[in-house]
């Protein structure tokens, strides 16, 4: 009984200690972001490996998610003779929810895990330590550009996901199931609001990019510098990012669309 209490206490303390370290680390990253303006090449390289290389999985997944939405939406709507509203259903689901959330989950799996593993391995092979001894700050040189790249690519990836998804829905709905093309687009245009829907979706994806980048960077930097430590850190990045993104999505949705 006492042992159980003790380990519970230790786990709680450990959790808050890590949370504190994570926050201090975030402050450190943020303090280096303005300096990134002077070294745009560092960020560009990372934008390629974090953003561009994630593009393929986002395109393919977006297309399939859109096609499923088209199929499911049509089957439900056709019972009420409202299949012309398919465009609205597909677009709102994607722009408000699925675009940012699924893109963030894919991002965590493809880019977040790679970032954690890369930084964790750099730590394990003393590359970060070596930089410090060369009077180069690894947070500035390695972490900040990667974080910024994650922050910049997430909204773009989410937007691309939604756009491709809408075409996927259009292909199924209009192309295969015979929904009227004009109705599909015009109803979508009438119902999707720039501020209420698009902006809120973009805000979500920025928040998710921030969180995904932060978790990936911190897990890598804080990893135990062994093979096992890096593998655990990589797993934690994916699991924690997924949980935090889904949790935050609920909170943000409640704040944005709750009233």
């Amino acid at each position, binding site marked *: 009984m006492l042992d159980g209490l003790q380990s519970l206490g230790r786990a709680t303390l450990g959790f808050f200690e890590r949370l504190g370290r994570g926050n201090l680390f975030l402050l450190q990253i943020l303090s280096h972001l303005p300096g990134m303006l002077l070294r745009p090449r560092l960020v560009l390289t990372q934008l390629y490996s974090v953003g561009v290389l994630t593009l393929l999985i986002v395109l393919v997944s977006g297309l399939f998610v859109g096609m499923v939405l088209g199929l499911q939406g049509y089957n439900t709507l056709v019972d009420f003779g409202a299949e012309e509203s398919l465009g609205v259903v597909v677009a709102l689901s994607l722009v408000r929810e699925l675009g940012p959330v699924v893109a963030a989950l894919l991002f965590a799996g493809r880019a977040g895990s790679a970032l954690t593993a890369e930084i964790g391995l750099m730590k394990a092979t*003393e590359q970060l*330590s*070596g930089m*410090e*001894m*060369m*009077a*180069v*700050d690894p947070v500035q*040189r390695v972490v900040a550009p990667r974080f910024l790249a994650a922050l910049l690519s997430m909204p773009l990836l989410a937007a691309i996901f939604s756009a491709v998804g809408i075409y996927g829905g259009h292909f199924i709905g209009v192309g295969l199931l015979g929904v009227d093309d004009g109705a599909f687009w015009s109803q979508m245009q009438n119902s999707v609001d720039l501020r209420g829907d698009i902006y809120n979706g973009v805000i979500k994806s920025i928040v998710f990019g921030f969180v995904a980048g932060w978790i990936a960077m911190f897990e890598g930097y804080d990893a135990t510098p062994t093979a096992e430590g890096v593998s655990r850190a990589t797993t934690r990045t994916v699991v924690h990012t997924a949980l935090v993104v889904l949790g935050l999505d609920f909170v943000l949705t409640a704040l944005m669309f709750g009233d």
Partner: protein
Amino acid sequence: MTEPVVQIRDLRFAHGDRLIFDGIDIDIAPGGVTAIMGPSGTGKTTLLKLIGGQLQPLSGSIRVHGEEVHKLGRQALYRLRKRMGMLFQSGALLTDIDVYENVAYPIREHARLPEPLLRDLVLMKLEAVGLRGAARLMPGQLSGGMARRVALARAIALDPMMVMYDEPFTGQDPISMGVLVKLIRKLNDALGLTSIVVSHDVQETAAIADYVYLLSEGRVVDHGKPETLWDAATDWSQQFMQGLADGPVPFHYPAPGFREDLLAGGH
């Protein structure tokens, strides 16, 4: 005596609950090669990290070039580090850029030099370690000994006053070992460096060292010129320097009696 480059006084340091250093005093004289030797796990690497300001001691002081390392602000510490080179055991080369870029890296980070001048500098450093021909290889294509020589070229890229070597001979074949031994001594004398070599390869290290400190269980057990340590006063130093299997450091890890252990039959 001239002012030591590194002066360590009453240094205490702990990793969690484990006390690594329990009050050690070390002076590193300028212009020489000082060896710090001791069994694995005595915290020799930790000592270098303390000198480089990467770790904080519990108490005591470390002065490098007259500056108290652990009282320096971040900028001052980075300024000091530019005057220290460090060779890591693994080499710690950046794996995503080639040998040339690795050596150029600290120069690019700290100075804005025209590309032709930078190229000359990098080639000079690589020539010094005999690897100018390997400039375009990636770190993954190098043997362990070559990687360490590239790391050495990088460590001297900013023309430091002092170079710290972390186990430079570990896991090297006899030829690369000989090359490294010669390089450390030659570079030290040619460039007017101060070198600190942390190692447990007694023969090689003693051959090039001007002065040796022996560490064990958190203390300096002996120090002196290498020739005086061969017939050292204490039994422990004798055992370590001559590599005897048994002595003050027992062959057996502490355990209950062998007979009782066998008779206990797993209970």
